[in-house]
């Protein structure tokens, strides 16, 4: 981006573009920058995951969990059945944040109550219990501010938030699952062990 700005500034100073042209070019570039950078991922391997499609969360009382996630993250509940409900991260037709591909749906939570030891519905053979566990999920929220997040959680009746660092807040959901909340500034490049 800085290189582009420098080039346009040079064009302006050398008379190649007008003052108005400079302002319009920089405005267009600044507002389109986020979308453009999403495509700079390098060559595609045979398979390349684009986004989390959904997270399958199983607990003793899916209504209770779904209501908590709806309250905290302001998520709608759709497609409820006797054993599960879906909580999409947006409205129908909305694009996932900064995803340019048109065939990537909104991430959603599927919150369920079901026997964790049931035979696999996928048709795969039953296997020993997984040796891996998802020990927490971190959600990116808009306009993250640690103190504001803690205050908002308190206003929602959630008093046990933990604040291990400036960029993140942890809280337990009603079933003791560790939920982390961060903003866009917290990423793989900024993350550090312990957070």
């Amino acid at each position: 981006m800085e290189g582009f700005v420098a080039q346009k500034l040079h064009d302006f100073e050398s008379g190649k573009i007008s003052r108005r042209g400079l302002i319009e070019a920089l405005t267009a570039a600044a507002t389109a920058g986020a979308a453009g950078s999403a495509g700079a991922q390098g060559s595609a391997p045979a398979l390349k995951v684009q986004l989390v499609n959904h997270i399958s969360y199983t607990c003793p009382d899916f209504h209770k969990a779904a209501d908590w996630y709806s309250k905290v993250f302001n998520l709608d509940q759709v497609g409820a059945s006797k054993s599960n409900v879906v909580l999409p991260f947006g409205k129908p037709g909305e694009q996932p944040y900064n995803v340019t591909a048109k065939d990537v749906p909104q991430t959603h939570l599927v919150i369920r109550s079901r026997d964790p030891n049931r035979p696999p519905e996928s048709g795969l053979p039953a296997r020993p219990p997984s040796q891996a566990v998802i020990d927490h999920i971190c959600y990116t929220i808009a306009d993250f501010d640690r103190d504001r997040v803690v205050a908002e959680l308190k206003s929602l009746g959630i008093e046990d938030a933990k604040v291990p660092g400036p960029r993140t807040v942890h809280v337990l959901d009603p079933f003791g699952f560790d939920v982390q909340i961060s903003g866009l500034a917290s990423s793989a490049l900024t993350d550090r062990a312990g957070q």
Partner: protein
Amino acid sequence: MERFIADLVRAFEAGKLSRREFCQTVALAATVYAAGDAADAQSAHGFKVLGINHISYTCPDYTKARDWYTSLLGMVNTPGKDTGKRADLMFGPPPGEGGSYLLTRNADSGEAGAAAAAKAVIDHICFTISDWDEARVRAALTANGLQIGGRPGSLHVYDPFGYDVQLANAIEENAFRH
């Protein structure tokens, strides 16, 4: 934004901003603008979720998970973040712009204990694959010796630690089609 940039041009012309300051400020404004879109969407109550920041995955040997998720699913091991006990595997939009990562780590990190105390479990994660080609996806999975379950457009495999991983397209796995 246009008015802001016009003011910057005026300040630059008046000598109040150096050339470098001007370029850096416009670049920063672009970043802030992208985040500001999200900020404008902030909810009155609760939080506006933009996406999954990361998934913390604890297993007996993170290197096996790291190699599997990078070689098969195209995740990118974040340079400089592989500590010998954990690795951050990026996917999706660029980091800081909505991108996600899978934090793979060894069980001795202590995180698994907290998860064991919970009465809820994430029993599988589904990832979207864009531009889905059923034959290509199945061939890639089979080439890695994986048994495939599920149905067309929505496949399940087990990762090296027996964790259920689902891969799907936008038609078969969509929140509004459940």
